[in-house]
């Protein structure tokens, strides 16, 4: 299964519920298109819920980084929610754990946006 992305609004923050695999090809394209679409609509507070993402490869990691830099460069914020152990381990070994704001609880994550 590749990735599915559903968006919802919570107190001015766009929560993107992702599920499946973020890998080279359709998975990373859907993530990229989703972030671009949100920015195009002026939604710059983005919380990616990765709770149901069971697999990310280096292309998927790259797409997360690209999303982060694109949103940040446009004055927005992109944060991560509910990392699985596999995804957290990947961000740990690539040192990206130091780059992203990461949360385990949605309410706290939403509240953290400024």
């Amino acid at each position: 299964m590749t990735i599915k992305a559903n968006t919802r609004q919570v107190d001015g923050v766009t929560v993107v519920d992702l599920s499946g695999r973020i890998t080279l090809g359709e998975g990373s394209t859907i993530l990229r298109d989703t972030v671009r679409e949100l920015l195009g609509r002026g939604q710059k507070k983005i919380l990616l819920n990765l709770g149901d993402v069971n697999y990310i490869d280096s292309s998927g990691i790259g797409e997360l980084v690209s999303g982060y830099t694109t949103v940040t460069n446009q004055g927005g914020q992109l944060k991560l929610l509910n990392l699985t152990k596999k995804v957290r381990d990947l961000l740990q070994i690539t040192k990206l754990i130091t780059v992203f704001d990461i949360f385990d609880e949605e309410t706290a994550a939403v509240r953290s946006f400024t």
Partner: protein
Amino acid sequence: MKKAMPSTGRVEVQLESSLESVDQAEEMARRFAQAAGFSEEDLDKIGMSVREGLVNAVHHGNKYDTHKRAGLRLEMEGPNLVVTVTDQGSGFELAGVPNPLASENLLKQTGRGVFLMRAFMDEVEVRRLSPTGTEVRMTKHAAPANGKEE
């Protein structure tokens, strides 16, 4: 944890330069390693490494050229799994791959594939093929055979 058991099996395929081949290769490697007795955690590492190797082969190496093939060989050398991935691209040198952990590279979108292979496998060697192409040889050691694992 199960010990990796020696196997005499060997699988060798030539794959089309497509993303479908990447998925196919990952699945083949996982099944091969599972049959050899590697742990679930190792299967994830092996699968990811093979995936990254094949992505490099079909995407960066062969550039999805339908006339070029990506090779995958899976074999046991004693208790160790050896994965060899080849492409027919213009070749690359490991020394030329930037360190993705360096602060100036941390926010780059690409450049983590080889790093992940090296993080997840015990040995990774890259060599240019003649007249063209690259071979990536990755080895995963079996779980320690000292009887200390669960």
